[in-house]
């Protein structure tokens, strides 16, 4: 993550550059076509004339994950589909974000059964959750605009790596119900 020129710059210099980069990134988020079920129809509707996602510079849904930086997981995610979603996510270039659209993608929704992954955050790291069954196109646009705010405020370079590491560590330390302590360490480093 700190491979580019931003890896060489000291933190204080990155502050103002990060603002500029954040604004540029937020203004050109290109989603990948990760339509799964009902929500995909609403996602398509969000791109058409009445809702017009192109007002926010993202009407072009990229079929290739290499050209996209936002994955909208729209709909129920079955166990058979889960590896495919993960592979598409892995193929996307950094920095990338995930929007979990709909009750099924967030929690499994009404499909509390053997077939559906109970929330796509079991498979990919989710940046923003959008509940609803299905959410209206306006709600999708709102969620994307909220995500834009997050992207704008995101740190850059080593700072971003630090934040990502802290988040991952927090997830590892999260306690399951009934657990009192969890001695898991990221990459064997002391907590």
């Amino acid at each position, binding site marked *: 993550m700190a491979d580019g020129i931003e890896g060489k710059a000291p933190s204080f210099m990155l502050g103002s550059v990060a603002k500029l980069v954040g604004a540029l990134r937020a203004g050109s988020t290109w989603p990948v076509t990760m339509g799964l079920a009902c929500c995909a129809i609403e996602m398509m509707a969000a791109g*058409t004339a009445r809702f017009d996602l192109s007002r926010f510079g993202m009407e072009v849904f990229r*079929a290739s994950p290499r050209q996209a930086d936002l994955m909208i997981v729209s709909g129920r995610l*079955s166990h058979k589909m889960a590896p495919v979603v993960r592979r598409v996510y892995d193929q996307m270039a950094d920095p990338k974000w995930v929007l979990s659209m709909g009750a099924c993608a967030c929690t499994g929704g009404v499909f509390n059964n053997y077939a559906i992954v109970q929330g796509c955050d079991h498979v990919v790291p989710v940046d923003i959750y959008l509940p609803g069954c299905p959410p209206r196109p306006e709600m999708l646009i709102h969620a994307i605009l909220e995500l834009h705010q997050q992207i704008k405020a995101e740190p850059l370079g080593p700072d971003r790596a630090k934040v990502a590491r802290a988040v991952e560590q927090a997830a590892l330390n999260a306690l399951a119900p009934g657990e009192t302590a969890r001695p898991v360490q990221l990459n064997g480093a002391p907590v």
Partner: protein
Amino acid sequence: MTAQPIAPAPDTDFDDAAFVAAAGGDWSDVADEIVRLKEERVAINMGPQHPSTHGVLRLILELDGETVTETRVGIGYLHSGIEKTMEFRTWTQGTALTTRMDYVASMCNELTYVLAVEKLLGLTDEIPERAVTIRVLIAELTRVASHLIAVGTGGNELGGTTLMTVGFREREEILRFFEMVTGQRMNNAYMRIGGVSQDLPPDALAFLRGAYPRILRGVGDLEDLLMKNPIYRGRLVGNAYLDLTGCIALGITGPMLRATGLPFDVRRAIPYCGYETFEFDVITETTSDAWGRFMVRMREIRESMRIVAQCIERLEGTPGPVMVADGHVAWPSQLSIGPDGQGQSPEHVREVLSGSMESLIHHFKLVTEGFRVPAGQVFVQTEHPKGTQGVHAVSDGGTHPYRLHVREASFNNLQATAALCDGGTVSDVIIGLASIDPVLGGVDR
């Protein structure tokens, strides 16, 4: 880098095989090998996240150059265990799951399901007339919305984004009506066993009367874009051919079957919901190709709009309840819009709580446990936008289905993929698939 001599094969067993060293090689040997084998086959994988496979369908294509020699269909990427989950939910809750099967034509799925359960209950003739007419109205509007998506996304997959935007624009008019009536744009769960969940709001029919000419004008736009477009015509005419014999052998129904000239429509063949009293034509084409299928869909939209107009007239003259009178089945709720959104109307709650204790207990039992359905099994079929949809419901006398199976037309129609695509080019696979119009939520369930 200079060409290296081909390294000797390490094992003499492979003497006959072509062997090219990674360091380089004589490409004339490779070319000779292809000439010797007289074939050049490539297997490519299309989907399950390909944007032109109508969702999460996976196609495994074997190509000889640009020609598809073999098509295999991989399904199950959207399997949601709906039929199994329904066995653990009450009969009433079943509509909320059926609506999510073929999510493009939600309320047609619900209709088949409630008709099946009502047949098990022996209630078929007791459904109030207004409820039946509302069901027909809603089912036909759903058909229009589904066909608009079929034609629109089909056009989009061929590169005509305008077809999609026009199709979705007109669908929005219908969705506005649905939202007004059911409270949801999609996944409505509007049909209830014994009727519909609530009556039409007072201004709904006036709204639909206003939207009616707009929808027809949009359909006209779509027809102009579709029928008068020489590129579209050139791609579709004579493509993805499947004749009547093939359709019957594969169990194909719906617009695909009618495009071969057979006027089979469950609404006419085995009428339900009083379709025999409506005036409409069963649309057929005789070309048996992708063009014929799209034409059937476009012309069916107009026929459905004819039925919608008749429903509006009937509903304006038919007041009355929208739920069966039998208190053992009728869902005891009345919704209204309060300051915090849609919910139970306060008057209804007051009425329930101020009535007798027995009535309150019955209300509680009906809502939490559900009603019992006599043991037995039925099979009911309706005309779904994709084809003939059937529900086979089995009851053991309990409050939940013992087993419920849905015959989704999309699933059966998808069997034709190989027949439509083999021997054509890769680009024609998209056309073949679009002309089937499968919805994977319905295929995989």
